């Protein structure tokens, strides 16, 4: 993985010194709270319901064992012994004290980590396919481009005060595991006649006005990536709306000005930005790519050793095909029914670090589904990995199943929340564990957001749940048929919401209806939904009926 060059090290240290100074100036009044706010946000520091929250970047979701151990140290020393992984592949510490934050940032800098631009109206942490460099369906590794984008966007002088936050996601595989269509810029690596390039989409975003990104350039030669992205940002910075923060994302500009107009403006600007890049970016990319060479080969048998039924069940759900027949990609579920989705204790972080070091080429990933991935594990080592995970309460065999729920922090932490999401996720997961049904159901995405901002990506789940507040009471709206992949779709609302007591039963009815409606176990929820529409599902939700299966 990428190791800091001297320049990165100096930059991050200088940034910590600067923030230490800003904290002092805030405390002695030279900076007003209004002025301090964007500065602390640029360094990942939020004010939540009960305390500050520090959001640390895990660029493109990649970290090594040393970094994971340092996160554990930070959690133990300055927080309450745990951290929370988010849908944007970051980690959040929920209980830091303002005066400790510069020390926390210094500790992170010791291992080449930072919290820069994890918040604020700037280009945020670039997210990527968590299986990058390992997946069997990969066209090209997106991580070198993601790292180049990280360096380009870090402290970019023109783009620190954009109309609104700006999110970029990148994938290099056939399957889109980075939800690129839900980002301000989505990048998909393609090969066209021997040339590598990107399909570039803009204007995706969830929140109160969910929209899927639209293709602004069908094929951008990879050498043009930075100047093209710089042209998009330049147009957005000049013309994006600043009069209403709910209309300030680039998706609204696409919607109001039209894709064609924006494309013309971007292409005209691109002519100029292209001329400003003198070639150093290419040399840097080549240098960065060297850090992402495939792990040194270590061979083994191509079959998974036998084991207990629990081990086999875990292998069935939590492994993904690696490009090498003697390896597997391991998803470590942070969704053991009853636990807080995405939370991990310091002790668990240390177990994960040890496993990565011993069996996983020192490589760990955080997925947007709030799980941890060991991307390169020899099949021969899987029993040992499973045993160690089981000992740490990390062996839930549910990756990709209905209890592998994405949930934002919601009203338990978040100042913007309108309802709780964590307890709902816990109850749904426990219910399905009791039903012993989810392995039969197969892959199913269930996402929960605690307010309209949609950090839980509920719009792109098979079953999406949005927590709202109606006359002082939490109520949960449901959407169905969302899809985060290459066949991206925004879910459709089923109708009136459900109370906190009703929502678990409602989800259960939807899942049972899907079992009734599908032609066979191969037909996914998204396929069934496209075939039968919302009607049969509404019937079981609101009319107390059985799912009427036409067949």
């Amino acid at each position, binding site marked *: 993985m990428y190791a800091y060059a001297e*320049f990165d090290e*100096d*930059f991050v240290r*200088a940034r910590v010194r*600067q923030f230490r*100074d*800003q904290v002092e*100036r805030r405390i002695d*009044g*030279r*900076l007003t709270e209004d*002025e301090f706010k*964007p*500065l602390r946000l640029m360094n990942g520091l939020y004010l939540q319901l009960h305390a500050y929250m520090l959001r640390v970047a895990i660029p493109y979701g990649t970290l090594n064992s040393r970094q994971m151990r340092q996160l554990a140290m930070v959690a133990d020393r300055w927080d309450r012994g745990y951290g929370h992984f988010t849908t944007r592949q970051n980690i959040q510490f929920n209980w830091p004290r303002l005066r400790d934050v510069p020390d926390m940032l210094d500790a992170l800098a010791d291992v080449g980590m930072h919290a820069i631009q994890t918040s604020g*109206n700037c280009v945020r942490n670039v997210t990527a396919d968590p299986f990058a460099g390992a997946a069997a369906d990969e066209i090209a590794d997106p991580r070198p481009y993601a790292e*180049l984008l990280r*360096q*380009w966007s*870090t*402290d*970019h*002088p*023109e*783009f*620190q*005060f*954009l109309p609104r936050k700006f999110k970029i996601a990148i994938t290099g595989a056939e399957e889109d595991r980075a939800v690129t269509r839900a980002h301000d810029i989505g990048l998909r690596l393609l090969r066209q006649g021997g040339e590598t390039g990107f399909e570039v989409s803009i204007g995706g975003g969830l929140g109160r006005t969910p929209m899927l990104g639209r293709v602004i350039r069908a094929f951008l030669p990879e050498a043009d990536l*930075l100047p093209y992205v710089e042209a998009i940002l*330049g147009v957005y*910075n*000049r013309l994006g709306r*600043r009069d209403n923060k709910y209309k300030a994302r680039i998706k609204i500009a696409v919607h109001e000005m039209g894709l064609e107009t924006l494309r013309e403006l971007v292409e005209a600007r691109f002519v*100029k930005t292209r001329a*400003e*890049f*003198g*070639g*150093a*970016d*290419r*040399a*840097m990319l080549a240098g960065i790519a060297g850090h992402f060479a495939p792990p040194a080969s270590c061979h083994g048998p191509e079959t998974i050793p036998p084991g207990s039924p629990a081990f086999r069940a875990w292998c069935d759900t939590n492994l993904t095909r690696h490009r090498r027949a003697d390896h597997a990609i391991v998803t470590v579920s942070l969704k053991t029914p009853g636990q807080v989705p995405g939370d991990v204790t310091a002790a668990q972080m240390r177990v994960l670090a040890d496993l990565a070091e011993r069996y996983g080429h020192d490589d760990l990933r955080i997925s947007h589904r709030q799980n941890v991935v060991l991307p390169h594990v020899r099949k021969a080592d899987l029993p040992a990995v499973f045993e160690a995970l089981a000992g740490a309460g990390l062996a839930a065999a549910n990756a990709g199943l209905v209890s592998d729920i994405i949930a934002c922090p919601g009203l338990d932490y978040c100042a913007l929340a309108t309802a709780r999401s964590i307890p709902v996720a816990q109850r749904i997961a426990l219910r399905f564990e009791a039903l012993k049904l989810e392995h039969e159901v197969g892959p199913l995405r269930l996402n929960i957001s605690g307010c309209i901002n949609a950090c839980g990506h509920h719009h792109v789940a098979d079953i999406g749940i949005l927590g709202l507040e109606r006359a002082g009471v939490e109520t949960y709206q449901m959407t169905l048929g969302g899809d985060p992949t290459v066949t991206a779709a925004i879910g459709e609302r089923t109708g009136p919401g459900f109370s906190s007591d009703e929502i678990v039963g409602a989800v259960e009815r939807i899942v049972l209806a899907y079992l009734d409606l599908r032609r066979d176990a191969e037909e996914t929820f998204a396929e069934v939904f496209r075939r039968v529409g919302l009607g049969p599902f509404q019937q079981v939700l609101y009319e107390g009926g059985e799912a009427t299966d036409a067949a």
Partner: protein
Amino acid sequence: MTGAGGSIIVTDAGFAVPVPGERFVPLAILGEATPRAVDLAPEDDPAALAPLLHAIAAIRIAFPVFSDGRGFSLARDLRRMGFRGRLRAAGHLIADQYPLARACGFDEVEIGAELAARQPEADWRCAACRGRGYLDRIKGPEPNPG
């Protein structure tokens, strides 16, 4: 140490009072004759100035609030268009933004007396010392191979 309107000009050399008598004409009311100095609002399109740029000595871009970053792109656009005169950011910028302004092509920043009192010269000098950013590296020429 303040100018007529109480404003302060910040450059790499620190605080100074504005040159007396320099008059900026807003883009919206430009007449026949090209003025020596022009005021741009954040929403202005600098394309209108293209034919005049060689004759203009100074352009001042307004920052109504420090969180409105349009001026940074405007500055870069003017430099891209070949403007070589003095470029000034004026209004609400805070000391921490000084390096950004410089990197985008501004030569100086004009702030009010209240802000200058709250964020004294030392804060701006400290900010001015910040080193090269990533962008300078990335936009450089290709290093010589070998």
